[in-house]
């Protein structure tokens, strides 16, 4: 049985500088034409990457310096747009295990939680500093400590924010929620009986 606890994630970082990065960019809609999640990692940010290559530039996800990164560092409102889980799945299947950002769209945050990817927040100045550091030193190891709510990079500490409910789920490994919810089955049945529309209105 795999260890589902997420206490500390350590690895290289990948800086992705932009606000309001939406789910259509994270995974273009044509890749939602699938009945499985396999293979989505290959297509993460595909249109943005192609566009930059076309302009003679290099998207961070194509940059060989960040090829082994496990921790994505982003700005504001990351993951806005659709509720599609394909976006976090694509990021995870590329190899990312945690995301640090100024802020996250709510459904995106929840979808990452559901698949065991912590999204933690940090102040804008600290994010800027981290992104600069990673550009300058792509080999700097980043350690995200969910328990202590800290980020350690290049011997400097930054504060990481995560709501307490999500934090508990990562520390205890209960982010994979089905089993826990199933335990409430008797109470669920009772609650359903108490709601008039569950019983009397169904044709």
């Amino acid at each position: 049985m795999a260890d589902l606890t997420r206490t500390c994630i350590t690895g290289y970082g990948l800086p992705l500088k932009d606000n309001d990065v939406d789910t259509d960019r994270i995974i273009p809609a044509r890749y939602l034409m699938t009945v499985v999640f396999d293979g989505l990692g290959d297509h993460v940010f595909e249109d943005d990457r192609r566009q930059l290559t076309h302009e003679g530039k290099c998207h961070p996800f194509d940059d060989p310096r960040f090829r082994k990164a496990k921790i994505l560092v982003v700005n504001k409102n990351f993951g806005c747009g659709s509720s599609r889980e394909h976006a976090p799945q694509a990021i995870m299947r590329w190899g990312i295990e945690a995301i640090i950002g100024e802020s996250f769209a709510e459904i995106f945050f929840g979808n990452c939680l559901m698949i065991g990817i912590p999204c933690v927040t940090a102040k804008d100045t600290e994010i800027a500093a981290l992104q600069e550091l990673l550009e300058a030193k792509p080999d700097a190891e980043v350690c995200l400590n969910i328990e202590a709510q800290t980020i350690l990079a290049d011997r400097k500490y930054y504060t990481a924010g995560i709501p307490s409910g999500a934090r508990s789920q990562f520390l205890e490994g209960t982010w994979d929620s089905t089993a826990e919810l199933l335990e409430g089955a008797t109470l669920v049945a009772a609650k359903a009986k108490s709601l008039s529309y569950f019983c009397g209105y169904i044709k």
Partner: protein
Amino acid sequence: MGKNLYSKVFDAHVVRTLPSGQYQILIGLHLIHEVTSPQAFEMIADRKLNVAFPGRTFATVDHIIPTSSQSRPFADHVAEEMMQHLERNARRYGIRFFSPDKGENGIVHVVGPERGLTQPGMTICCGDSHTSTHGAFGALAFGIGTSQIRDVLATQTLSMGRLKVRKIVINGQLNRAVGAKDVALYIINKLGVNGGVGYAYEFSGDVCASFNMEERMTLCNMSIEGGARCGYINPDQKTFDYLKGREFAPTGAAWDCAVRDWAAICSDSDATWDDVVAFNAKDIEPMVTWGINPGQSVNVNGKVPVAAGLPQEAAKAILDACSYMGLKENEAILGRKIDVAFIGSCTNGRLTDFAEAVACIQKHNLKVNKSVHALAVPGSVSVRDQLVERGWDKVLAAAGFDFREPGCSMCLAMNPDKLVGNQVCASTSNRNFKGRQGSPSGRTHLMSPVMVTLAAAHGCIVDARDF
């Protein structure tokens, strides 16, 4: 002390508090479609679980379905595969499927309400972010991802935290040619695309009271574009009148009990909210998005903003958007040439949206400009049938609109209806992100149905108040 609707409905559905401090919430209505469900069904089969409440689960096909011919097999083999997965899963677990084979299909957020499935006081979820639409009925309705669909299928519950609630009051009377879509875009412009993160929005005031149910759905639909997880409007007599007689609405004594229960969930007069924002209806003009997110909008006689003098982030956002959209700073949006016009989507694909378009066409004897390809896509077979009954399909076709079968169509790039190259589209849909409508360089301007109709006729964006 009184409670707001969010608290009443949320509290009524709490099964228990979980060790994490989040709540196990019972879901009253689970809507599924072909894109976000296949993996969820796979996950429950892998874990040898069953669907807990198949009677509270309803399916339709909308994102991938072609709007030209809907005969089977679909031309796109992946679309056909996804359709077959949904058919198999619905059959296996005893889930009612509003399928094209029975002539019952449509966009999930059009089908739920029109069947009377969506009712006040419910918790409603679906693997699609515009699930917020159903909040128009006084329900708590929100979008979820595939793993959460797995949980709802297996347990009819989700783990959720409690949201804060922001009341948005709009009083006064809307100006002529200004409608629900303009109100939605105005609010997002004022509060920002992430202004609502962590909040449920309660829309209230004279304007909401004056809206019919379809207009309320348009407004609630766009809640997510303002960052809010869900948005709702307190139910009233219009809500009850809409529901009466629909397939899944209660009847007889059950109807009387239901109406009493529904009236009781409205926010109390002494309720409190985490914050309250007020807007004046008369300040709202016809709105158009100019940029690459729903918050980058102006009123129709406004101009693209100027980057100079703004903080670096805001300046960069304007320049990036201008570059993608092929617009200049300080350029007027009026007169912006369009190549494609699209009336449809879960935002504006209902009967009254087409009524607005048809009234405009008939009043001014409009014809689609020869440089424009215009699509009219009804939100469901039922909407389509009602348009045909009234002869409006012929009015739209005679005006030069390509009248289609129901589906999500050109809102998003998952079926053959796509922009080509850097085409510019005037659209009644809900997102204008880069590449949203199927071409990596395609450009989207969001606006109301009457604004799209007039743009289609003139080949460019015009002010609906001039007509």
